[in-house]
């Protein structure tokens, strides 16, 4: 399984903070492709979003980053702390 997290406006827009998904994807890109099929809000937030931020196992990642079973993948908007 892969643990998928959504933060801030993504959490609100997608209606969930986290979920467990089967580890059937080799890259972040393929995970996004599957999630985008859930509906317009998913497509907008993840697939069409030029500002999408991605982390894999707490490190900054991108669409090409590989993922495997046990990984934690997080999707979020640009950060605004400090």
């Amino acid at each position, binding site marked *: 399984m892969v643990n998928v997290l959504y933060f801030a406006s993504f959490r609100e827009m997608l209606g969930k903070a986290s979920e467990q998904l089967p580890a059937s994807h080799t890259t972040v890109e393929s995970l996004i492709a599957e999630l985008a099929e859930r509906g317009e809000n998913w497509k907008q937030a993840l697939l069409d979003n030029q500002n999408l931020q991605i982390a894999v196992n*707490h490190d900054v990642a991108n669409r090409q980053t590989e993922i495997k079973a046990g990984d934690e993948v997080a999707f979020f908007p640009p*950060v605004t702390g400090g």
Partner: protein
Amino acid sequence: MAPETQQSLKYPNIRVQEEDFDLSTEVAKLREGHTDVGAVVSFVGTVRDINEGDDVAVLELEHYPGMTEKALENIRQEAHQRWELESSVIIHRIGKMYPTDQIVLVAVSSRHRENAFYAAHFIMDYLKTNAPFWKKETFPNGEERWVDARLSDQEAEKRWK
């Protein structure tokens, strides 16, 4: 062991907490055991009562537990590699805050002031674009708005490349 205790053992110079902090106390801790320090630069970020022209009543800070601490520690280590520093600490609050409240502290000690100024400025610029925190503002009428990332923060970070 509670997760927050594990994090603070792993990253003793990083704190992510709901509680407020006291500047003098933190600077005193930072300097403890460093008698060769000549300069301490601290930055305190505070909640402004106006943002983008609108009155702000409440600011709520969300973060990504685990990644936050790791990202902040990476930023801190990078600063220590770039400048000769004695010690440094980063404290970032989460949860609900109100105008004039303290949000973040970055404090750096070094032998000479130039290193301390540059390092503290660098840490803040990097924190702004690389640490997973998100701000949501609530206005006096109850409306909520996620704060947009600033282009100027991305520009500020690029300066250090």
